[in-house]
Structure formats: structure tokens, C-alpha cells
């Protein structure tokens, strides 16, 4: 009787902490410099306030798939992906410095640079 009380309180506490952190993470924030990271290595650093609109094609580490990272008017998003789930495309533009755009199959991350 006692043990399941503890389990319930622990689960409740984790839920509340996670909910608070989610709100903090989803807040709109971020700088202007972004970086494109693949396999833990930075491929490109782009200053969104200065660069022209462009599409960057990034081939996956095993060479069988790709992502297209689009810079449009100071925002960046993944506009195309060669994987079945397309989650990174549906995520839309990069908004928060805490929440990078991630493509798990192609091991690609688009995030704001820390400076």
C-alpha cells in the first residue's frame, strides 16, 4: 500500500517538472546564427540576418538519403527529406534555441548557435 503511493507521487512529480520544462523550452527565443550539425560535427554556420535566401542540400552519412535546408527571409526550415517519416519537414521553421530541428534517420540537427 505504501510503496505504490511513493510510485504515484514520483510519477506525478516527474510529470509536473516535465510540463514546466516543456513550457520553458517551447517559448519563442533564439538568435540569428544557426548551425547545421551532422553526426556531432558542425557542417555549416549561417547568419540568418545577413545571408541571402538559399537551399542547402545535405546528403546523409551513408549517402542514401538527403535533407534540404531552406533559408527564407531570416528563417530556416527543412523543406524536403528523403526519409519516410518527414517529421523534420512537418516541424516547420526553427523557432526556439532550446528546440532544434532533428532528423533522426539522417542524423542531422539544425539549431541556433550558442555564442
Amino acid at each position, binding site marked *: 500500500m505504501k*510503496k505504490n503511493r511513493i510510485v504515484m507521487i514520483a510519477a506525478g512529480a516527474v510529470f509536473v517538472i516535465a510540463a514546466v520544462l516543456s513550457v520553458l*523550452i517551447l517559448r519563442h527565443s533564439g538568435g540569428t546564427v544557426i548551425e547545421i550539425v551532422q553526426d556531432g560535427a558542425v557542417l555549416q554556420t549561417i547568419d540568418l540576418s545577413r545571408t541571402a535566401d538559399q537551399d542547402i542540400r545535405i546528403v546523409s552519412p551513408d549517402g542514401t538519403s538527403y535533407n534540404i535546408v531552406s533559408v527564407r527571409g531570416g528563417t530556416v526550415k527543412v523543406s524536403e527529406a528523403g526519409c519516410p517519416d518527414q517529421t*523534420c519537414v512537418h*516541424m516547420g521553421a526553427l523557432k526556439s534555441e532550446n528546440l532544434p530541428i532533428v532528423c*533522426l534517420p539522417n542524423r542531422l540537427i539544425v539549431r541556433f548557435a550558442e555564442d
Partner: protein
Amino acid sequence: MHTKRLVTLGLLTGISLILFIIELRIPNLLPIPGVKLGLANIVTVYAVFRFSARETALLVCARILLGAMFSGNLSALIYSACGALCCLLGMLLLRRVLPQKQIWLCSIIGAMLHNIGQICAAMAVMRSLSVIAYLPILLVTGSIAGLFTGLTAQFIVSRADPGK
């Protein structure tokens, strides 16, 4: 008796695969990697409370391997395997502590452990810590989905064979 057990496990594996494939057809509400309803987890939670640890592990392994093949998304295998392993270990331990009326709680914690395992795998594969930002969001959505699947499993356990 042994054959009956085998057939039941095979049937459960089939049911969980069907749920898994139906779920692939449901569009994702939140475009965040790793957010899922986890319908197949209903069967796992049911098995945790009705079968031995070994039998449940067999069921889950078969589901994950076959599910990855059927969905054609083999690259997602490592994430789902790590998540499912954490989830299964946690739920098997919780089974000793929680009564049958709190299967929903077991399922919620299982879902949370699944998310933690997934994120750990993602951090290892991507060699980057920044994916940890997804963990709080996954924990919140995961526990809501876990509550739903857990309640479903609880109803099945109490209706299908209440005598045990």
C-alpha cells in the same frame, strides 16, 4: 498447456503488430520526433501482468523486429529497441509493487521510461546533447498516451480474466 501458451503469445504478437500498423496510418498530432500514441503498448502492458517476464520479453522483441520490417523504417529500430527495453525492465519491476487496479500507473511510468531510453539512444547516435530538449515534451505527451493505453489494458485484464 505449453502449446496453449505459445499460441496465446503468438496471437498477442499478431494483435500488437496490427495495432502498430494501424497507428502508422494515424497522422501525427505533434510534429515532434518520438511523439506517438503507442497503441501496441496496450498488449505489452497486458502481457506484463498476465505472463512471465521471459514470455513478455519474447513478445516485445518479436513485435519490435517485425514492426520495424513491416513499417520499412529500419533506421528507427535502435530508438524503439532502446525505449522498449527500458520500458519493459521498469514495468516488470513495477509489477511486483503495484496492484492490479493501478495498471494505468505502471503504463505511465513505462511510457516515461520508453521516452528516456529513446532520447538516450538518440543522444548516442547523433553524438549530440541537444536532443535532450525533446525529453520534457516527450515525457508529457508520453504519460498522457501511457494513461490511455494503461487504462485500456486495465479494462482488458479486469474484463477478460478477472478470476486470476
